[in-house]
């Protein structure tokens, strides 16, 4: 498959361990945040989202934490599996009439899961 990004920060974890991927965002007006997963040669896939009126949201094996004070977002993956290997992007949007649902993406982190 094709590489999504050759110079991305890389997080390498052992299968079964928990993974934490961090993201700093810049727009204090952002109201809605999403984590996407992008596998090699594919388009980004939605993982989990969170609104600015929340600080934590849990999904299946994933948790997103939002700290608006320092404009920081994190994605926690429990019991990381080889299928979790991908590039992970955080994205933000103010969701107003000028931006619509236009997302501004972070630079991405490559997660590599060692068997």
């Amino acid at each position, binding site marked *: 498959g*094709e590489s999504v990004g050759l110079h*991305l920060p890389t997080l390498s974890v052992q299968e079964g361990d928990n993974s934490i991927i961090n993201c700093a965002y810049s727009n204090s007006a952002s109201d809605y945040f999403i984590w996407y997963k992008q596998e090699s040669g594919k388009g980004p896939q939605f993982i989990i989202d969170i609104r600015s009126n929340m600080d934590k949201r849990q999904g299946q094996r994933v948790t997103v934490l939002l700290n608006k004070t320092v404009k920081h977002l994190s994605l926690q993956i429990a019991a990381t599996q080889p299928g979790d290997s991908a590039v992970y992007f955080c994205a933000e949007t103010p*969701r107003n009439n000028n931006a*619509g649902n236009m997302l*501004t993406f972070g630079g991405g982190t490559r997660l590599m899961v060692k068997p």
Partner: protein
Amino acid sequence: EAGVTQSPTHLIKTRGQQVTLRCSPISGHTSVYWYQQALGLGLQFLLWYDEGEERNRGNFPPRFSGRQFPNYSSELNVNALELEDSALYLCASSLAILAGDTGELFFGEGSRLTVL
């Protein structure tokens, strides 16, 4: 239900040529977004179309343009191709702003453009 579809999946052009990329949104979605993802970089916003109108554009030169058709499908046109235009071009669709419970963008698999 079909997801966002894009065509072509891969194409090779030479400098100075023109290219048209196509996108069909998820049925019921009226907004289409185009992003450029160059190798080693994140996703850069190009264009947003809703109800046939261009609503916003990113920091790209005018040779990047597009349109949205009455059936909400969209085209991205790039004129006078340059080497640095080589990238994966991603199309995403969503419901109209504030409709539905989420602002999630649903992405297609992209069109990989190589400019030689």
